């Protein structure tokens, strides 16, 4: 049999990519299409009938003030978290590659928060905010301070703090890999040419690590936009529903308020926003990438 024949190529392709392709279709593509179909119905999640209602779910999604408020909070939360996560992760990575004593221990230590699931993490930190911090404040000042989780801005701050704590270790690993991939000789060459070490860092090492930045920012952005577990266990949207982020609002809309179609439409809008931001950011990031 000729190896250049189309049927042979197709057969080869299906043999290797087929199983994964079929599974991908079955668990991602088909549900996604079905999900889009559901946004055109007023299904409540349980009924046998799925009445077709055209675009009214989208209309409701666009007029749902609580949804846009949640989305606004998500943007604020994500922007601050992404910036902080990456700064902290980069500094940690720098610290644990600079040859300090016990750096492997520190690498493991900083990574561990990422191994704890978001739900557990939320409950642990809830205890810290509500009890531990209050008790410490009590011991120092003599009067019990209010828990951070009791005010809307405090709750948002708590969410950001815990996210940074959780993700920084993970992003640190990617930055560590980035640091390791930059050949030491390049830095030495720059130093010989008269750079001081911060100039070498800024003008030689950081540009060469660009792909690490692109990856880290992409990962942290999408994770922050879709965050649900931490939101649920740490604040549950409280106080006053002022810490409900987009994913939580979508879940409530679909399953608690039983507007499945509207919830699905809102989820789709969230997906599109995420996809656009993600693609744009990777495109811009990749464009200026340099190879050593």
């Amino acid at each position, binding site marked *: 049999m000729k190896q250049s024949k189309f049927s042979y190529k197709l057969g080869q392709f299906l043999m290797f990519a087929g199983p994964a392709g079929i*599974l*991908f279709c*079955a668990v991602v593509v088909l549900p996604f299409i079905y999900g889009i179909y559901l946004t055109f119905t007023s299904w409540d999640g*349980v009924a046998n009938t799925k009445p077709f209602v055209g675009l009214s779910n989208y209309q409701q999604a666009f007029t749902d003030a609580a949804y846009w408020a949640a989305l606004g909070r998500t943007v604020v939360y994500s922007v601050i978290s992404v910036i902080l996560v990456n700064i902290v992760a980069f500094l940690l990575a720098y610290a644990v590659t600079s040859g300090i004593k016990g750096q492997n221990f520190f690498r493991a230590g900083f990574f561990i928060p990422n191994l704890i699931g978001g739900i557990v993490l939320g409950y642990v930190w809830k205890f810290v905010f509500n009890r531990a911090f209050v008790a410490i404040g009590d011991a120092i000042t003599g009067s019990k301070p*209010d828990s951070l989780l009791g005010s809307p801005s405090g709750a948002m701050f708590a969410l950001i703090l815990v996210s940074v704590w959780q993700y920084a270790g993970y992003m640190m690993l990617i930055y560590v890999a980035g640091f390791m991939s930059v050949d030491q000789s390049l830095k030495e060459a720059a130093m010989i040419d008269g750079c001081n070490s911060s100039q070498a860092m800024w003008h030689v090492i950081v540009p060469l690590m660009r792909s690490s930045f692109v990856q880290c920012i992409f990962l942290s952005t999408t994770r922050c936009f879709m965050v649900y577990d931490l939101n649920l266990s740490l604040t549950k949207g*409280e106080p006053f*529903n002022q810490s409900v982020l987009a994913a939580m609002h979508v879940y409530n809309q679909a*399953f*608690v308020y039983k507007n499945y179609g509207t919830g699905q439409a809102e989820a789709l809008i969230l997906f599109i926003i995420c996809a656009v931001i993600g693609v744009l950011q990777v495109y811009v990031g990749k464009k200026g990438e340099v190879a050593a």
Partner: protein
Amino acid sequence: MAHSWMKLGAAATAAVLSLGMLGACGSSTNSNATTITLFNSKVEIEDQMEDMAKQYSKEKGVTVKVYYSNDTVAAHLATKYASKQPYTISMVDDKDIYSLAKEHAVDLSDEDWVKDTDYALSVDGKVYGFPTTVEARGLIYNADAIKKYTGKDFDPSTIKTTDDLKSIIKELKAGGMKSPVGVLKEDWSLAGHYLPQVYEEQSDVDAFVDTLLKGTADLQNNEKWNSLMDTFDVLKDNNYAKSSAVSAEREVTEQKLAEGEIAFMFGGNWDWSVLNQYDVSENMGMMPVPQNMDDGANEKLVGGGSKFMFIDSSDQTTDAQRQAAKDFLNWLANDKEGQKFIVEDCSLVSPFKTNTLEVQDPLSKSVKKYADEGKLIPNYSHLPDDHYSVLGAEMQKYLADQEDRDALATNIQTYWKTAKLSGATA
């Protein structure tokens, strides 16, 4: 990099999917006529349920399998119906019966137990929901703590009005109890349990809800609203966590009540399962929410049947399974063993008159007493699905003194104008 991740992801999905398929194979044998499945949505009694199922299976020759889910009832049943694997019997909340019964439930009007209870749930004149228990809301008190601080035996029937409540709180404070009240900040407690009393205690509930929907209701000048909110103010002002009311944790509040650090908390007999975990005082109970309004509501608890079971009517359930399920419900209601299971093993108040066993936990004892005397104001079961969440946030603002009563009333009225009653559209 990205490619190897995708491969890893694909491998993982493949693994998960094949596991799922194996699981599906394993469970496809349960179309057997003598096996029925039961969805339990009351987490407190899950262990008892499983033990009972084992025992029942052994004695009756009908295998009962009990399931529980952490998901909300509606979301969980939605997946079961979507995958065409409904439970033979599902235990759900009243509003789920309204939304599910017509399509998915069997008519139980001819069953023996229907005449023995006031709490069976009907839609359009047909009985669909078997009441598992009776639950009611009111003010929980710790009589031991009150006696300790006032030196007198506590008689709940002496606290009828808001003024009575104020005076006993004053006495407690004089005796050394710093702040005698706990207020749960959970949205389901504030707007799922306390606020609805404003609707439930109106002389004509449906007519009042109608005015809310039409936007013609005038809460600010409504006597019941003001009467209940006056009492709420007393509770709020004497809250042990007054300055941090919206971050107070339920477990802490219940512990303080159980151990007598505070004396009153608005709640229901379901709170016993939490109180019970601490060093609980012996003499506790439930009393009506005191009110100055003189319409008799301050002599009644608010509540009724709770956690309703319905039997699946779809083709996935065989007639033999349906019969077995009906037998099971009859057993729960009328058989000595079934009655014992509800009252003694699960500590629930039985909704059936034929069940005369004495319930052990003190809160349920109070509920049983009020229920037997006919002093229960019925729940309003068509509250919109987002009511507790949206208005819970408003009530929290009021609790935290970020909103005054008029603003709260206005916001409640604004919410209702666009609200959609649950289960009423069908």
